[in-house]
């Protein structure tokens, strides 16, 4: 399932943003953002509310179009490729939304198997086996949850099902939008552990948008702090605590 973890820092960036700008009319949301993330790394994007953290994830998926700059996914600029190529590149990514975004009318089984039915020609048995495998991976008992609807799940279970759906087709890139928001501390820790497990066992490239500093400290190999549309800090969590930038100190205080 996983690539060779030894090659992590030798390989080119899996997701790379170069001088990305985004504006809505006169309002500049992002100003010259540059970030690199490789396989086996977890980048946590931190910052206050409304600074454009989630917007970066939407640019990576091309749910939004950057005003200027390059957004490279495994070396291909998603801002310039054709519509069909965008769909192909999106298959290389898995996204976990803030509200989980599970399909209300589908059971857990149908939610998790959805990408497989869409993009593979696997048999029913193969899909069923894969769904059970990923549900077990996210610490859910398949027999207990397969036939449940999203409305019947707790917040933590919904997040785990959303993660299962995001990883079921084995994408090398995972994007998380506020994965622990609204969860109690114990469930938050469970989700953090799951993100760590994904990195260690599947060697994925993860980008996590959060404003939960404690959570970021646990899971990040690198952190980027956004302020006023710009990255004002980018480095390891240790470097962040050693930073003398005034806003960084205020944020971590």
């Amino acid at each position: 399932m996983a690539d060779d973890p030894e090659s992590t820092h030798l390989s080119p960036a899996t997701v790379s943003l170069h001088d990305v700008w985004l504006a809505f009319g006169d309002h500049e949301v992002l100003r010259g953002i540059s970030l690199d993330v490789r396989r086996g790394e977890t980048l946590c994007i931190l910052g206050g509310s409304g600074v454009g953290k989630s917007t970066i994830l939407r640019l990576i998926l091309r749910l939004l179009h950057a005003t200027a700059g390059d957004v490279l996914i495994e070396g291909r600029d998603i801002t310039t490729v054709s519509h069909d190529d965008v769909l192909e590149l999106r298959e290389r990514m898995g996204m976990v939304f803030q509200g989980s975004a599970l399909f209300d009318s589908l059971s857990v089984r149908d939610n998790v198997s959805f990408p497989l039915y869409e993009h593979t020609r696997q048999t029913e048995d193969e899909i069923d086996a894969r769904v059970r495998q990923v549900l077990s991976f996210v610490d859910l008992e398949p027999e207990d949850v397969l036939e449940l609807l999203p409305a019947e799940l707790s917040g933590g279970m919904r997040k785990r099902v959303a993660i299962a759906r995001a990883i079921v087709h084995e994408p090398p890139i995972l994007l998380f939008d506020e994965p622990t928001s609204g969860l109690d501390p114990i469930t938050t820790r469970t989700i953090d552990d799951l993100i760590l497990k994904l990195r260690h066992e599947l060697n994925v490239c993860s980008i996590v948008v959060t404003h939960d500093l404690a959570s970021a400290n646990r899971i990040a190999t690198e952190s980027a702090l956004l302020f006023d549309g710009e990255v004002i800090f980018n480095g390891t969590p240790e470097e962040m605590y050693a930073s003398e930038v005034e806003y960084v100190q205020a944020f971590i205080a």
Partner: protein
Amino acid sequence: MSEASARRTAFRLTRDAVLGVALAVQEYFALLVRVLRACFTRPFYPGDLVQQMDTIGVASLFIVVLTGFFTGMVLALQSAVEMEQFGATIYIGRLVGASAVRELGPVLTALMVTGRAGAGMAAAIGAMKVTEQVDALRTMGVDPVRKLVAPRFIAALIMMPLLTVVADLIAIFGGLLIAVLKLGLTADLYMRSVYTTLADNGFVFQYIPVDLVQGLGKPIVFGAIMALTSCYYGIRTEGGTEGVGRSTTQAVVTTSILVLASDYFMTQLIIVFLL
């Protein structure tokens, strides 16, 4: 505020409103193009199509039957009051048949199905939009227009004419009950009267009755309008649950107006070119 400033503000508001409408019309027809392309190119979603046919067709059957039944009865009752004065009650069947098949059947069915299924479409897609389920589809490489809009569009094109035929038949039956039980006509006389008006109204290409063109052509257009308008408002929903309510209302109101307006223009075209 000075008079000049007020005038400038009024101009700006008017200009923004006009541009907003023009943009909405452009988006509406862009959606129509994408839906038509999705109807004829892979991937298809037959399971979703069957589900939508059930939601639009089977689930709307009861209200359509009720609407047709009472419309037919009230048509017969009201016309009897006037026609009795001239001793023309034997022509009740002609009036009920023509009114139901040409106008009331298609229009009332479209309005009732819009209130039920169209509102449901806008609400369902709108709720998916505000809970990021539509974005989730896109991130999984699935085109929401193909998955959500195209099956609803095709299902509406198929089910609306079928529901209209049911409404027409039930309306004629409702008229029959009044004709027989209240006016003392025989069922045979009433049905001959219905048949005469539908058969004698001319033919298209010598074989296709004009009333069949009206009776089945209009519901196809109404079905397309309902599905497209409802999905259009659903997909552009913003602003949480309040936005879903707003989209649903807009979908029903706009569809109803478009149905009534397009009915007038289609009738005008039929009168000019076919009668």
